[in-house]
């Protein structure tokens, strides 16, 4: 069978770009730049997330990181991580567009420090401003259907609901809600962003019909990040393949898989 990541009849299109991989990888918390680079290659990801942070004059850490990412030849998705107001997020997005040279922005407006839950009101406000300004907004949101509607109305062409709080590794906390969102927006690119801790979580998201997953901590903080990156690659491919193959419906009662007809001693 053809490699699912390269299936010509199963493109993952988002904001007019066709991606071969349904795994988007964060670049934070790796033990070294070399491990980050090897993990990115092992994951098969074509998109990596990046950020902007303060740096003292004379330091060139930021430039060194940017050189590394550029050498990998991957598409970047800058984020607005840590922003707590629409105004902060908009300014950060504008700065990111200038530095990274892309209209793509992973829009985060954080409403709570403990859960890192998105402030969906600020999120919609920022999404509207940025979409009008030509950005291609990837909003980090909840699975709330009405918020999703508002984000689409604000100009978003993709949604990124959380699976669980960022960095928690708890998987898909609200499968029912995520299924409802998928059913409500059958043609919108949907990416589970945050909370994925194990490859099985990623597989589950793809099995539910989600188009892709975005994760960072589960790879970066694994005992062997490079091996885990490859495990996630396989998990995402398996989940997508399973989705396309259409899973059986669960049932409450047992049903023998071996034919009953012809059994001896009956």
């Amino acid at each position, binding site marked *: 069978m053809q490699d699912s990541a390269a299936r010509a009849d199963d493109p993952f299109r988002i904001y007019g770009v066709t991606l071969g991989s349904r795994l988007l990888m964060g670049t934070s918390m790796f033990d070294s730049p070399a491990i980050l680079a090897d993990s990115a290659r092992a994951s098969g990801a074509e998109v990596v997330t990046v*950020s902007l942070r303060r740096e003292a004059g004379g330091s060139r850490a930021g430039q060194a990181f940017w050189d590394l990412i550029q050498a990998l030849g991957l598409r970047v998705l800058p984020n607005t991580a840590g922003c707590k107001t629409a105004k902060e997020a908009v300014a950060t997005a504008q700065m990111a567009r200038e530095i990274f040279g892309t209209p793509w922005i992973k829009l985060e407006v954080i409403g709570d420090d403990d859960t890192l839950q998105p402030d969906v009101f600020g999120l919609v406000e920022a999404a509207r401003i940025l979409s009008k300004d030509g950005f291609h907004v990837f909003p980090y949101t909840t699975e709330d259907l009405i918020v999703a509607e508002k984000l689409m109305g604000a100009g978003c062409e993709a949604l990124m609901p959380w699976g669980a709080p960022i960095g928690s590794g708890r998987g898909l906390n609200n499968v029912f809600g995520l299924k409802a969102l998928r059913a409500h927006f059958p043609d919108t690119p949907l990416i589970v962003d945050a909370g994925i801790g194990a490859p099985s979580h990623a597989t589950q998201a793809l099995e539910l019909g989600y188009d892709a997953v975005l994760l960072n901590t589960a790879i970066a903080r694994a005992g062997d990040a490079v091996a885990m990156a490859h495990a996630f690659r396989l998990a995402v491919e398996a989940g997508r393949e399973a989705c396309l193959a259409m899973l059986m419906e669960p049932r409450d009662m047992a049903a023998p898989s071996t034919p009953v007809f012809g059994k001896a001693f009956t």
Partner: protein
Amino acid sequence: MNIRVNGEPCRVTSRDLASLLDELGYGDATVATALNQTFVRKKDRAEAKLAEADEVEILTPRQGG
């Protein structure tokens, strides 16, 4: 003039954002700038005048999730 740069108090002589970057040693580093929470494009930095108590952000690429 006393301003804040990246959240820290800073006494500077520069009167505009472009000069400030030189004064603080950023040189040709890849940075993006904001003045009082408003983005300032690279080409507009020389026209971005500084005033007492202004807040400047100077950001560079970094790892992100």
